[in-house]
C-alpha cells in the first residue's frame, strides 16, 4: 500500500526531530493543539449548501468535515536546521490572544485565565533570573576553587580556595598577604619544603598535571554527552534568535555539560573566559523554562523573545551590569526586539543580578572580581593616550579576527579537526608550560585584570605598586602623588610585556576549541596589560619631565595626575570593542563596572576609535565572522544592501532552468505529490489554479504535506494513492463508491508574500529583514514566475561581496 520509494526516514525524522529534548511527544495524540491555532474548521455554512452530500444529511456531513479538518499534530512545527516562519508564528500568537480576550468576557474563570496568561511572561522572567543567577553563582564559586586547586589545598576544609582559607588566619602579614599555615601548596605537602628548586619544580609539574587533567575531563565530557556545548555559543544564539532552529542546542544536557565543563575549562588555565558561555547557559535556562508554559512552548516567535531576555540575564550576571546586559542583548544578539521585551529583559537581568549577589560568590557583595573603586580625575590631554589605546584595540581586534578565522577554517577543513581531544591537550600543555613561570599568567585572568585595574595606594604591597615613597609624608592613604618606579615595578613591567605577547598569540588558538570558551576576559586582559603599561609609562614621563609643556599646567610634582588603573580600564574596553564591535553596550558595561560617570568620555573615545580602526580593516565582528564561517542563514540587519539588482536576477528558476515546481489546486493525486516530494528537495511549493494560467492560490510547506499525507493514510479511511488532493474550499461531490478525496486546504498559507520581477533587490532584502520571511514569490504580469528564498538572498549578497556563495550551507 505504501509507496516504498517514498522516504520513510523522513517520517521518523519528523517524529523524533520535533520533540525538543524529548519533552513534547509528537507521535500520538498527546499534543493539545487547540483548534484556534490553525484555520478554524469549516463551519456549518459550507455544509448547508450540500444538502444531499453523499446521501448523508447535513449534520453528518458537517461532522465528517469537522473530523477531516481537525488540525493534525505536527503541522506547523519545523525541522532541524531550518528557518521559522515569523509571520505565521506571530499571527498564531495574535489569534490565540484574540481568542483568550474574547472568551474572557464570558465568565470569571475565563477572565482569571486571561489575566494569568498575561502574567505568565513575568513569572517566566522571574524564574529565568533565579535559575541563571544560581547557576552563575555555582560556576563562579566552583571556578574560583578549582583554579586554586592547581596550586595547593586548604587543610581546614578542602572546599575553601586560597583566599577563603586564609580568611580567618591571623598569621598573614602586610607584605605577604597570601601565606597562611592552613593553605599548603602541593610541593609543601609532598616534599615538606616551600622554597627552593625542588619545590618550584614540583609545583610546576603538579600545575601542568592539574591543567591537563581538567582540560581532558572537559573535552571528554563535551564529546560524550553534549557536543553542542563547545565554543562560545553566541554566534549560534544570534542565528537562533534570527529564526534558525538547532534542536538540542538549548537543551538540558547542553546546559548541564556546559556548566560543568565551563568550570573545568576556566580552571585549567586556558586563555578563555566565561562570559560568552554564560550567555549560552542563560539561554538554555530560558529555553528549558519555556516548556513549562504552553504559550511559549508552542510558539517559536514568542520563545525567541524569552531567549532575548535570557541572554540579557546572562550578560548581567557575567559582568554585574544589568543595563549593559539588556543593551548587549539588544545590540549584539537579538534580531527582533519589541519594546515589551526591553522591560522584561531588564526585569530578568535584575533578578539574575540580585540572585547572584545573594549567593555572594566573591565574599564582598560584588558580582565581578574586577570592580573599580577609584574616582581620580583625568585631564583632557590624556585623551591622546586614550585614543592611542583605542587604535591599539582596533588593530588587535582586526588581527585577532583574521587569525582566529583562519585557524578555525583550518580546523574545519584539514586533518586538524579530526583530533579535538589531542588539540585541547596540546594547547593546554603549551599554555601551562609557558604560563607558570610568569606570575602574571599563573593566576587566573580575572585576578590579573583585577590587579591591573587597581589604583595603587599605600595599602597595596603588590609589585605593580612598588614606587619609591617617602615614609614620613602625612598624606592620607589613597591620594598619593606620582612617584618614581621602584625596582620591583621594572621587573613587573617586563613580566607584563611577556604576558601580553603570550596572551595575544595563545588566545587565537584557544577560542573555538572543543571546550566552552569565551573571549571577553582574554581580550580585556590584553587591553588591560597594554593600558597599564602605557599608564605607567605616562606616569614616569610626567614624573621625570614635569617641566615639559604638555605636563606643565596640570601635572606638577607632588600632584596625583596619572592613574595607570584608568588606562588599564580604557585599554580593556578598547580591545573588547575592537574584537566584538560593541558600542553602546560596551560603554555601559564598563561604566557599570566603575560605578560612575566620570570615565565615560575616555571610555567612549577609546571604544569609538577602536571600532573605526577595526572597521577600516575588516568589516565584521568576531561573532559575525564565525556566523559566516559556519554558513548559517543569518540575514544581518546592520548592513545596507547597496547594489542595483532586481528580483528577477536573484529568483529561482533562472533563465535556462525548467519552470518553477508548482502544485495545482485540484487534480493532483496523493501518488503524484509523494513522487514530487521524493524527487525534489524544496522546502515548500506554491499552489496555482492550473498549470496553464499559473495564477497563485497559496503556498504549502513540504513538512506539512508529509505529515498531513501520512496522517491521512493512517487515520482517514478511504485515502489511497489515487485519491485526489484538493486545495480548494469546496470539493466537488463524488459518488459513494469512488475514491474519497483528500482536502489539504488547511495546511496552505493563503497569503504568501509576492513581489514583481522588477522590484529592486534593496526593497526585497528590506522586506525579508523586516518581516522575517523565509521565501517570497515573484510574479510577472500577475502570473507566478519564480521564488526567492533567504538562502538565495544570502548567496546573492555573498556573490556581490566577492565572497564564496557556496559557503551558505543552510536554508
Amino acid at each position, binding site marked *: 500500500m505504501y509507496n516504498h520509494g517514498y522516504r520513510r526516514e523522513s517520517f521518523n525524522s519528523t517524529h523524533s526531530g520535533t520533540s525538543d529534548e524529548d519533552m513534547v511527544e509528537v507521535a500520538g495524540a498527546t499534543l493539545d493543539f487547540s483548534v484556534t491555532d490553525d484555520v478554524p474548521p469549516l463551519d456549518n455554512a459550507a455544509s448547508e449548501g450540500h444538502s444531499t452530500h453523499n446521501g448523508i444529511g447535513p449534520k453528518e456531513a458537517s461532522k465528517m468535515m469537522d473530523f477531516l479538518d481537525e488540525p493534525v499534530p505536527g503541522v506547523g512545527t519545523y525541522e532541524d536546521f531550518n528557518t521559522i516562519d515569523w509571520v505565521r508564528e506571530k499571527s498564531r500568537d495574535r489569534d490565540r490572544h484574540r481568542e483568550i480576550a474574547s472568551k474572557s468576557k464570558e465568565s470569571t474563570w475565563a477572565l482569571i485565565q486571561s489575566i494569568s496568561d498575561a502574567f505568565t511572561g513575568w513569572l517566566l522572567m522571574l524564574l529565568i533570573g533565579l535559575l541563571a543567577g544560581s547557576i552563575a553563582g555555582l560556576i563562579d564559586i566552583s571556578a574560583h576553587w578549582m583554579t586554586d586547586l592547581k596550586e595547593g589545598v586548604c587543610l581546614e576544609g578542602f572546599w575553601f580556595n586560597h583566599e577563603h582559607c586564609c580568611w580567618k588566619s591571623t598569621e598573614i602579614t602586610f607584605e605577604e598577604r597570601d601565606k597562611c599555615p592552613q593553605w599548603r601548596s602541593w610541593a609543601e605537602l609532598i616534599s615538606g619544603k616551600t622554597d627552593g628548586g625542588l619545590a618550584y619544580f614540583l609545583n610546576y609539574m603538579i600545575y601542568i598535571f592539574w591543567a591537563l587533567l581538567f582540560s581532558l575531563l572537559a573535552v571528554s565530557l563535551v564529546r560524550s554527552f553534549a557536543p553542542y556545548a563547545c565554543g562560545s555559543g553566541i554566534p549560534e544564539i544570534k542565528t537562533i534568535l534570527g529564526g534558525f532552529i538547532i534542536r538540542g542546542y538549548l537543551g538540558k544536557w547542553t546546559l548541564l555539560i556546559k556548566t560543568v565543563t565551563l568550570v573545568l575549562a576556566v580552571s585549567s588555565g586556558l586563555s578563555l573566559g566565561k562570559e560568552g558561555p554564560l550567555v549560552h547557559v542563560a539561554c538554555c535556562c530560558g529555553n528549558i523554562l519555556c516548556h513549562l508554559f504552553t504559550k511559549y512552548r508552542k510558539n517559536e516567535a514568542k520563545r525567541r523573545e524569552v531567549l532575548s531576555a535570557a541572554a540579557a540575564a546572562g550578560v548581567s550576571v557575567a559582568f554585574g551590569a544589568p543595563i549593559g546586559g539588556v543593551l548587549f542583548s539588544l545590540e549584539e544578539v537579538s534580531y527582533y526586539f519589541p519594546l515589551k521585551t526591553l522591560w522584561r529583559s531588564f526585569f530578568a537581568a535584575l533578578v539574575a543580578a540580585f540572585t547572584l549577589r545573594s549567593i555572594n560568590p566573591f565574599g564582598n557583595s560584588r558580582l565581578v572580581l574586577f570592580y573599580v573603586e577609584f574616582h581620580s580625575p583625568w585631564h583632557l590631554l590624556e585623551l591622546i593616550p586614550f585614543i592611542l589605546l583605542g587604535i591599539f584595540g582596533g588593530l588587535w581586534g582586526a588581527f585577532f579576527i583574521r587569525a582566529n578565522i583562519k585557524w578555525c577554517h583550518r580546523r574545519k577543513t584539514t586533518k586538524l579537526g579530526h583530533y579535538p581531544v589531542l588539540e585541547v591537550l596540546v594547547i593546554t600543555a603549551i599554555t601551562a608550560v609557558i604560563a607558570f613561570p610568569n606570575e602574571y599568567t599563573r593566576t587566573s585572568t580575572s585576578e590579573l585584570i583585577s590587579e591591573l585595574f587597581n589604583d595603587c595606594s599605600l595599602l597595596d604591597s603588590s609589585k605593580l605598586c612598588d614606587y619609591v615613597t617617602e*615614609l614620613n609624608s602625612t598624606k592620607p592613604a589613597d591620594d598619593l602623588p606620582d612617584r618614581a618606579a621602584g625596582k620591583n615595578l621594572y621587573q613587573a613591567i617586563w613580566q607584563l610585556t611577556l604576558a601580553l605577547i603570550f596572551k595575544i598569540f595563545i588566545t587565537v588558538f584557544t577560542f573555538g576549541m572543543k571546550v566552552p570558551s569565551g573571549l571577553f576576559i582574554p581580550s580585556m586582559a590584553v587591553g588591560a596589560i597594554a593600558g597599564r603599561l602605557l599608564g605607567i609609562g605616562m606616569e614616569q614621563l610626567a614624573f621625570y619631565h614635569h617641566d615639559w609643556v604638555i605636563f606643565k599646567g596640570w601635572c606638577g610634582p607632588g600632584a596625583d595626575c596619572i592613574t595607570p588603573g584608568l588606562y588599564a580600564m580604557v585599554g580593556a574596553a578598547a580591545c573588547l570593542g575592537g574584537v566584538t564591535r560593541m558600542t553602546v553596550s560596551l560603554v555601559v558595561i564598563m561604566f557599570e563596572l566603575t560605578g560612575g560617570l566620570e570615565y565615560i568620555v575616555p571610555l567612549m573615545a577609546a571604544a569609538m576609535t577602536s571600532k573605526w580602526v577595526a572597521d577600516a580593516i575588516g568589516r565584521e565582528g568576531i561573532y559575525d565572522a564565525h556566523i559566516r564561517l559556519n554558513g548559517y542563514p543569518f540575514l544581518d540587519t546592520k548592513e545596507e544592501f547597496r547594489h542595483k539588482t532586481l528580483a528577477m536576477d536573484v529568483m529561482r528558476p533562472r533563465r535556462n532552468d525548467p519552470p518553477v515546481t508548482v502544485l495545482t489546486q485540484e487534480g493532483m493525486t496523493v501518488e503524484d505529490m509523494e513522487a514530487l516530494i521524493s524527487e525534489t528537495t524544496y522546502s515548500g511549493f506554491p499552489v496555482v489554479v492550473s498549470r496553464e494560467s499559473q495564477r497563485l492560490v497559496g503556498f504549502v510547506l513540504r513538512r506539512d504535506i508529509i505529515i498531513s499525507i501520512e496522517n491521512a493514510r493512517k487515520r482517514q479511511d478511504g485515502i489511497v494513492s489515487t485519491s485526489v488532493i484538493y486545495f480548494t474550499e469546496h470539493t466537488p461531490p463524488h459518488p459513494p463508491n469512488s475514491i474519497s478525496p483528500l482536502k489539504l486546504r488547511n495546511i496552505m498559507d493563503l497569503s504568501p508574500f509576492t513581489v514583481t520581477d522588477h522590484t529592486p533587490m534593496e526593497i526585497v532584502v528590506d522586506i525579508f529583514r523586516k518581516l522575517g520571511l523565509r521565501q517570497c514569490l515573484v510574479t510577472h504580469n500577475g502570473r507566478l514566475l519564480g521564488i526567492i528564498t533567504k538562502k538565495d538572498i544570502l548567496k546573492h549578497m555573498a556573490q556581490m561581496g566577492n565572497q564564496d556563495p557556496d559557503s551558505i550551507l543552510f536554508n
Partner: protein
Amino acid sequence: MVFAGGGSRLTHLSLELSLPCLATLLLLLLLQPSDAKNSEDVRCKCICPPYKENFGHIYKKNVSQKDCDCLHVVEPMPVPGPDVEAYCLRCECKYEERSSVTIKATIIIYLSILGLLLLYMVYLTLLEPFLKRRLFGHSQMLQNEDDVGDHQPFANAHDVLSRSRANVLNKVEYAQQRWKRQVQEQRKSVFDRHVVLS
C-alpha cells in the same frame, strides 16, 4: 519544578533531576535567614600601612558593622596616644562577610555532579557494550533454541520473565537509545563534518 512529558529513565533521571535539585538547593540556601549565619563568617579587616618605625600590619576581628573602624579593631595599638589619630587615618577598614555553608554546599554539589557524569561516561563507553554483548549473546542463543523446541525450562522462564519486565525497561531502553542517537547526530555535525560550531 516538574517537567512535562518523557518517560521514566532510571539512569537519566538522577542526572536530570540534579539540575532542578541544585537550583532549589541553592535557592533554599539563599532564603536561609541570617540567624543561621556562622559568627566566624563575618569579620572586619583593617589594613594599616607602614608608619614611622612600624611595619604595615593587617588586623582582623569579629565585630559588627557599626564597630568596624580602626579604634575597635586595631589591638594592641602600636603607636602611642597622640599618634593614634594619624595612624588610624591611614588605615582602611572594611566589613566583610561570607557564607562558608554556601561555599561548602556548592563545591560538594559540583563535585558530586562531576563524579556522577564521569561514572556515567565510563559506564557508557566501557561497561555497557561489554554487558550488552553478554546479554544479547545469551538471548540470541535462547531464541535459537526456542525455535527448535524448549527443553530448557530455565531458559524459558528467563525469557518469560524478561518479557514481563519489558514494559518499564523497554521505555528506559527506548528513551536512552533515542538520546544516544541524538548525541551521535550532534557529534557527527560538530566533530566529524564540522557543519556547526567550527
